[in-house]
């Protein structure tokens, strides 16, 4: 008995060692760039580190207390939450397009899909630069408005419209991405479910409500989590299109973090903003988890 167990044990040990070996580079990277980085962000957020000088003094929660009363932070937070609030609109639009694309009546599907998806592969910097032109006072959007007799607006210089304009062009860029995911989700719904629903006399609205939506549960969960996390990380388009203006109307958390850390030399404070972003994403993800009672299994 003993003689047979030993090679097995040895094999087990060898397997475990190989396993660790395969995982080692990954773990080294995760420990450095995730765990250490997060711990370091938390620690730095409690210091008065200014970036220029290496000295850091521990100041406890003072940065967070200051954040609490910082008017500009409130503005950035509010604007970021607006970006998040617009996520469902983007999802609804992409779902709508996916439903149309899934229809048997639609021809040239590949062509449409390619067209919708092309903006996704372009970098946000380029996309934002283009839309800066479109939103300009003598840009395309205003030409169209003037043509139909509506008043023209300096979209990115307008207190009311700047943020919606920035959000809209981001939504348009993401449509193709979400649409493809929804389309893939739609195709996993077994056709016999629809047939059964039809036999039960369900109209197309009821079919959508009782068959399509439940069938897309996992897809929706994935897309919305991704989109919400993304909404807290908006930066490129702000940097290119508005610089946070007019009057802070498009300042978001990440652009404020960048300003505080690298331009205003308040790295400790900037780290505190980073930690807040982290907490927001964590909370949002947990809420999502609770809302969609998912069979999401790993």
């Amino acid at each position, binding site marked *: 008995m003993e003689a047979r167990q030993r090679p097995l044990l040895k094999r087990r040990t060898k397997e475990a060692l190989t396993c660790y070996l395969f995982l080692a580079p990954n773990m080294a990277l995760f420990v450095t760039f995730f765990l250490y980085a997060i711990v370091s962000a938390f620690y730095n957020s409690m210091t008065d580190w*200014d*970036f*220029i*000088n*290496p000295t850091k003094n521990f100041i406890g929660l003072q940065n967070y207390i200051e954040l609490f009363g910082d008017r500009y932070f409130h503005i950035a937070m509010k604007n970021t939450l607006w970006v998040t609030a617009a996520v469902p609109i983007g999802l609804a639009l992409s779902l709508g397009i996916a439903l149309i694309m899934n229809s048997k009546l639609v021809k040239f599907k590949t062509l449409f899909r390619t067209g919708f998806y092309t903006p996704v592969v372009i970098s946000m910097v380029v996309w934002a630069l283009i839309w*800066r032109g479109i939103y*300009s*006072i*003598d840009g395309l959007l*205003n030409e169209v408005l*003037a043509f139909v007799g509506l*008043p*023209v607006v*300096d979209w*990115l*210089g307008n*207190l009311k419209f700047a943020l919606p304009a920035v959000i809209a062009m981001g939504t348009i860029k993401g449509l193709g991405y979400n649409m493809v995911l929804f389309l893939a989700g739609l195709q996993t719904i077994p056709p016999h479910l629809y047939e059964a629903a039809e036999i039960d006399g369900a109209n197309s609205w009821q079919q959508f409500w009782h068959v399509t939506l439940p069938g897309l549960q996992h897809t929706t969960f994935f897309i919305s989590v991704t989109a919400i996390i993304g909404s807290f990380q908006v930066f490129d388009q702000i940097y290119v*299109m*508005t*610089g946070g*203006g*007019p*009057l*802070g109307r498009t300042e978001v958390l990440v652009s404020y973090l960048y300003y505080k850390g*690298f*331009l205003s*030399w308040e790295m400790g404070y900037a780290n505190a903003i980073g930690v807040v972003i982290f907490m927001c994403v964590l909370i949002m993800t947990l809420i999502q988890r609770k809302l969609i009672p998912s069979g999401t299994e790993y």
Partner: protein
Amino acid sequence: MKKHSLALFVVLMVSMLLAASVSAAETAKIRVWIRGVNDVATRMFEEEVIPGFEKLHPGVEVEFRPLTFANNYIEIDTAIAAGNPPDIMTLGRPSALKYADKGVLLDLTEFVKSWDRYDDFYEFTWTDSTDMNGRIVSLPVWLDENAFIYNKRLFEEAGLDPNAPPETWEDLASYAQKMTKYDAQKRVTQAGFKLNWGDWMGLLQSVAPFVWQNGGTFLDEKTWKTATVDQPEFVEGVQFAVDLLNKYKVDNYKPWGEANATQSWIKGQFAMQVNNTGVLRDIYGFAPDRIHEVGVALPPGRKTRATFVGGTDLGVAKASKHPELALEFIKYLYTTDSYLVRLDQEIGWQLSPLKSHKEASVKALPVTEVLYDTLEYGKSFEPIPENMDVRKRTAEAIEETIYGLSTPEQALKQAAKDINKMLQKTDWTKKF
């Protein structure tokens, strides 16, 4: 055989190491980072200035690096944060004091005071380079002045004398209105007077001259500890700038503006503007056939004339290993006359801070004469490390007024309160 080759190898390595350390001891290296230099200026540094200096100082190696205007601060900041700043670096005139405040810059007072060129600098330049404790922390190298630029052709078209630019606010407002044109959607197609937008700095540089012309200041200029942006002179100046936009409608307000000032001028999209001299240089470069249409004049005034003077300073890093060589290099750059003058022209028709350079400058570029005359009315940033924060908060108040969210009085009163609160927090004496 094997043993021999091993020994040979060891000897070779040791001698190489020795050679390396000896040569390292002999050559001292200084690093010089200069922002905003174009190809011609870069070549001038690499082919003339540096070889010339190295010839005078055998064994010294100068490493030159041109920086872009867009990213020069990040580049310098990260080098400082990494503990490896260049020996000599360019800093924007308003921000040098901020670096000094963080203890990055070498105190140049001794050097400057004992330098025979001290009196050759325009006096006001020293005020801007001196911190609250009376130490000189940077040297002005180029003055970047905002000039009053106008389009003579548009003056003629509007029936105005192209050789009589506006002298007063009233002139400015009425001329501007005469030269403003709109399209069917009420968009301004030809701005009578173009305010220089862009970010908040551009906005301030456009509005601040009106404030100064009216006798206003940002801070109490004796103590530099109290905001005066809520004083009547200041408020009135802001009101006039806002009126140009909202009442006389001589331009559309464009934050984060996207107009190419040079192209706009060439296309005749604005009649008058106060802008930095780089624009002037570009017009001369891009449209040599239209130079006769360019008018350059003293800025208009009210109680006094005034315009904004910024520019570039040189700072020496406290962490420099060879501060004496860095100072030698600076002396060389300033005193070998032709360099600074020629660089001025390449870098954007900026002005030399040395009085003795004026003649050569004007001879090379006659149009700069009026710019030198304007220097007399130049005002700069407040000589405190927080000057950017003071101005940013003020710009916000001005923008609130432009958008009609508040009156200039209210907005500036709140700004003054915030600025005072901020300035109370700082204690200049503790830092050194």
